C-alpha cells in the first residue's frame, strides 16, 4: 500500500459522548473487589434504617396526636366523696349540654383504683386517699387552649373544684422526645451522606491517580473534561448502584424484622408507626439519592483534578 487508508465517514469535530465499552475500558475496574460498593451498601443500609426510624416515629407521634387531639380530661377534686360524686354527675350533665362535646365517659372508680395501684399498692386505695373523679370527654373539634379554657369556665361556674386538661398536653414531653429522635435520625442520614461522599471522593481520586497516564493521553488526544469525567462517573455509578441495591435490600430486611417484633407487642401506640405508600417512596428515594450523590462527587472530584491539566 502506498497511500494512507481512507477514513470512513466524517469526523465529528464537536464535543460528543465518548461512551460504550471503549470508554469504560479506559478505567478497568475490579468490581466488588473494591471497597466502594461495600461502603455504599453499609451507608445506604444505615440511612434506610435511620429514615425508617424517623418516618416511624413521625407516624407514631402523628397518630397519637390525632387520636388525642379532641380528648380532654375533667377532674373533680373534692375530698368529700358524696359531694364529689354529685359534682361529677353535674359536670357530666353540663358537658353533655355543650355543642362541642361529642361523648362523655365518667371513669369508673374501679378503673381509677387500678390506675393508682402500681404506686399505692393493692386494696381500696380510694378509701384511704381521696381520689378525684375523672371524666373522659371527646370533643367534636380540637381541644386547643381556648376550648379547654371555655369548658373550664363553663364548669367552674357551678363546680369550682373542676379542672380541665387536654390529653394531648399530657403527652407533650413524649412528642418532644419523639421529635428529638426524628431530628437525630435526620442528622445521622446527613452524616452518612457526607461519609459516603467522602468515600466516593477518595475512591475517585485514587482511581484518577491510578489512571492518570491514560487520562493524560485521552486529554491530549482531544478528550474533553466532561467526556473523561463521564468515564469515571460510569465506573462509580456501577459501584453505587450495586452498593445501593445491596444496602436497600439489607436495610429493608432489618426494618421489616424489627417492625415484626414490635407488631408482636400488639400495642395500639406502636401500631401507629406503620408505613404508608408515601413512606415507602421516601425509603426508595434513599438509594437513588445515594447514587446521585456518588455520581456528583465523582464528577466534581475528577473535574477538579482535570482542571489542573493544561
Amino acid at each position, binding site marked *: 500500500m502506498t*497511500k494512507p487508508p481512507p477514513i470512513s465517514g466524517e469526523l465529528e469535530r464537536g464535543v460528543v459522548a465518548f461512551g460504550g465499552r471503549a470508554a469504560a475500558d*479506559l478505567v478497568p475496574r475490579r468490581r466488588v473487589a473494591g471497597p466502594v460498593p461495600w461502603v455504599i451498601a453499609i451507608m445506604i443500609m444505615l440511612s434506610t434504617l435511620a429514615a425508617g426510624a424517623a418516618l416511624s416515629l413521625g407516624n407514631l407521634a402523628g397518630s397519637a396526636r390525632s387520636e388525642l387531639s379532641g380528648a380532654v380530661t375533667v377532674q373533680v377534686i373534692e375530698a368529700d366523696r358524696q359531694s364529689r360524686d354529685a359534682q361529677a354527675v353535674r359536670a357530666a350533665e353540663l358537658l353533655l349540654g355543650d355543642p362541642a362535646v361529642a361523648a362523655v365517659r365518667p371513669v369508673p372508680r374501679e378503673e381509677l383504683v387500678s390506675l393508682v395501684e402500681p404506686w399505692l399498692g393493692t386494696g381500696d386505695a380510694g378509701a384511704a386517699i381521696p381520689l378525684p373523679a375523672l371524666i373522659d370527654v371527646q370533643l367534636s373539634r380540637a381541644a386547643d387552649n381556648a376550648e379547654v379554657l371555655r369548658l373550664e369556665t363553663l364548669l367552674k361556674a357551678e363546680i369550682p373544684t373542676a379542672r380541665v386538661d387536654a390529653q394531648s398536653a399530657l403527652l407533650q414531653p413524649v412528642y418532644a422526645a419523639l421529635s428529638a429522635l426524628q431530628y437525630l435520625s435526620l442528622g445521622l442520614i446527613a452524616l452518612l451522606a457526607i461519609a459516603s461522599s467522602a468515600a466516593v471522593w477518595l475512591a475517585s481520586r485514587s482511581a484518577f491517580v491510578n489512571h492518570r497516564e491514560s487520562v493524560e493521553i485521552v486529554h*491530549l488526544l482531544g478528550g474533553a473534561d466532561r467526556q473523561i469525567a463521564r468515564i469515571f462517573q460510569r465506573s462509580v455509578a456501577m459501584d453505587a448502584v450495586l452498593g445501593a441495591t445491596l444496602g436497600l435490600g439489607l436495610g429493608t430486611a432489618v426494618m421489616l424484622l424489627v417492625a415484626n417484633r414490635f407488631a408482636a407487642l400488639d400495642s395500639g401506640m406502636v401500631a401507629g408507626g406503620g408505613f404508608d405508600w408515601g413512606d415507602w417512596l421516601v425509603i426508595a428515594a434513599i438509594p437513588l439519592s445515594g447514587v446521585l450523590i456518588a455520581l456528583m462527587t465523582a464528577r466534581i472530584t475528577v473535574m477538579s483534578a482535570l482542571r489542573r491539566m*493544561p
Partner: protein
Amino acid sequence: MTAVQGSIVSFDNVGLRYGTEPEVLSDLSFTLFPGCFYFLTGASGAGKTSLLKLLYLAQRPSRGAIHMFGTDLITTSRDDLPRFRRRLGVVFQDFRLVGHLSAFDNVALPLRIAGVKEADVIRPVSEMLDWVGLAHRARALPATLSGGEQQRVAIARAVIGRPDLLVADEPTGNVDPDMALRLLRLFEALGRLGTTVVVATHDVQLLKALPDSLIMRLTKGRLLDPTGALRYPPRASYAAAPWTGTGA
C-alpha cells in the same frame, strides 16, 4: 499580532519557562503552513520537546502569542482546547500507548474520542494497522509489542484521524531504516492531503530523505532563522496547499 494569512500555526515572540526557572524557549517567531513538512532539529536540551508540547497544546506559553487554525490560543478558554487537539496528531517520543488497551483500541482512540460510530471505526483502524504492518498484532497489548511495533502503533494512532497538524517526536527512532522510510512516506502523503507535519529528529538520513522540507533548528531555546524564511516563507512553498485557514 494576528495570524499570518493562510498559516496553520504562527508563533510570535513566544517564551516558555517552567515555574521560576530560566526560559527554556525564548523569542520564538515562526509560521507553519498547510501541507508543509518541517524538521525540528537541535542538540539535546535545546528545547525541541518543549516546543512540540506547545504545538500539541500540552503547555501554554509564558509569554508571546500563538495562533492556531486562525484562532488566538492565548485568549482561547481551556474548555475550547479539545476542539483544537482533535485536529492534531501526536507521536510521543515515549509512545504513550494506553497499557491495558490493545493495539487496535489504541489506534481507535482518537476516532472514539471524536465520537465516530463504532461501525465506522473498525475498517480504517484495521487498514491503518495493516499499513504499518501490524494487522496480525491488532489484539496485542502494548507490553507484548517490541519498541518498533509500539512506535508504529503510536504513529498509526497519530494519523488515523487525518489531522491538520501532525507533530512527531523522534518517530523513527525505534524502527529499522526500511520502516523509517516507509513511515516518512506516510507523513509525506499526509502532507499532500493538506496535513502540516513537524518531525523532531536527530536522524540525518531522515533529513536527507526529504530535501525539500523546511528545517527548524533550535539552539538553547532559540530558533535559528537568519533569513526569516520560517517566519515569512516564500509564497511558493505553501501556495498549493489546500488549507485556507478560516479558523477552528
